[in-house]
């Protein structure tokens, strides 16, 4: 009907009398990378759960033209399955075993974990585990990747590395991505569009577009500027749009 891959139309939802989302609308284009940021407890994850179909909103319409998979914060891998078996979950729909093995090998290559196929998740580092989760979610021919703070349990340097890897993986296997995060840097470094939410009940406070190829350097001027604007929108930095040029020269 329309070219919107994902859309939320006038969604409202509450949990036990607490209104989490009020009259929320959002359209996402195919191939777009959208990040949703906002104060903790503002309903970010609920929006993701509504997009995935896990939560049915109290009112409003959800449209989803495609198959979505979720990447969780941590512990999304089945600990009783090896790396290869976890990834194979994402390839269940492929009937031909040879083809399945070939794709599994490709995915292991993509996440640079060749040689770890027989390892169990508890034998891997946090970063390696999240890479396996990504591989599982990117397996096969799904359209949408829903990510719920996928790197927040990792240390800072690993997080930087994972952002870069995610960007490279998406280059090879393009997906429409919705990333929920509280990490402003992550949003500015990865997303085409950052949606800043207000406090509960969640409303869109503003949107920020970043037209810049990925992977992006964290210190790229446009990324830095994006971070500043996001922090300003969240009331965490002063507006310095009038002195921006000077700041960059002097610093």
């Amino acid at each position: 009907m329309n070219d919107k891959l994902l859309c939320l139309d006038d969604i409202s939802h509450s949990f036990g009398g607490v209104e989490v989302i009020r009259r929320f609308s959002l359209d996402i284009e195919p191939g777009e990378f959208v990040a949703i940021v906002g104060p903790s407890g503002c309903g970010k994850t609920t929006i993701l759960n509504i997009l995935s179909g896990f939560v049915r909103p109290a009112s409003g319409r959800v449209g989803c033209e495609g198959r979505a998979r979720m990447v969780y914060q941590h512990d999304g891998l089945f600990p009783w399955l090896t790396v290869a078996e976890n990834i194979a979950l994402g390839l269940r729909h492929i009937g031909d075993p040879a083809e399945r093995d070939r794709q599994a090998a490709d995915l292991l290559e993509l996440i640079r974990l060749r040689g770890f196929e027989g390892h169990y998740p508890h034998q891997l580092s946090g970063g390696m585990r999240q890479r396996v989760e990504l591989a599982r979610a990117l397996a096969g021919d799904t359209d949408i990747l829903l990510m719920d703070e996928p790197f927040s349990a990792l240390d800072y340097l690993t997080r930087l590395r994972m952002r870069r890897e995610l960007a490279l993986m998406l280059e090879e296997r393009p997906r429409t991505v919705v990333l929920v995060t509280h990490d402003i840097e992550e949003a500015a470094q990865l997303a085409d569009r950052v949606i800043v939410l207000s406090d509960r009940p969640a409303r869109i406070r503003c949107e920020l577009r970043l037209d810049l190829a990925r992977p992006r350097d964290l210190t790229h001027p446009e990324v830095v500027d994006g971070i500043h604007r996001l922090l300003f929108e969240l009331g965490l930095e002063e507006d310095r749009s009038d002195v921006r040029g000077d700041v960059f020269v002097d610093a």
Partner: protein
Amino acid sequence: MTETKRTSGERVLPVAVVIGSLLLWWGLAAAHVFPESLFPDPLAVGKGVVEEVITGRLFNDLVASLFRVTAGFLLAVVLGIPLGLVLGSYGRARAALLPAVNFFRNLSPLAWIPFAILWFGIGDSPAVFLIFMASFFPIVLATVAAVATIPMVYFRVAHDYGLTGGEMLMRVTLPAIAPQVITVLRVTAGLAWVVVVAAEMIAGRDGLGFAIWDARNGLRIDLLVSGMIVIGLIGVVIDRLLFRLTRIPSVRWGYER
């Protein structure tokens, strides 16, 4: 990964303790510190074991006891785990039945001995019944707890990847509870082995428990002690066998983090 190399001292020490204890025992017996009729010497006990082996009685008793434990324990596993799965999954069933299960869990299985004899007479059945009563309730409770604590995220992932119904049970629920269930199996198998001895002392005509009771009645304290040693050793063997279950690669995660 957590396997630590045992130093030679750690290997030698337990052996040294056993030899030391035997020497102390032999010394006390040889010095006649206690009356001979109450304190057998190790040589007599050794002879008793040999005698029991030669007559074939030890083997018969062993088979009888192992059969009863295996039957009662397997019955408890086969009925207890499914009931635990149901109670763990359905809040209403849990609310209705958990207090009763808890009551029986805390009732000593030995309290059932009179009914075991009244209902089942003498032989295999009362012992199997008592072992079942000892193992069933702990297995149910542990399964309920394990099911209730499966992280929600596993079910969400299973749903994302199209696992439903029977596949959900076989590929998510059961593997997720396996480590905790194996732990309770080890505990209850030990309990079952304790209970079979008591059951056979009172409601048996053979079995290791009957053998030591019979030895006491015949004032054969050498056979009494040899029976005790066999019972202890078999208990250790049973636990070591079940411990092997924790070495299965797909359950290691439950013990290593």
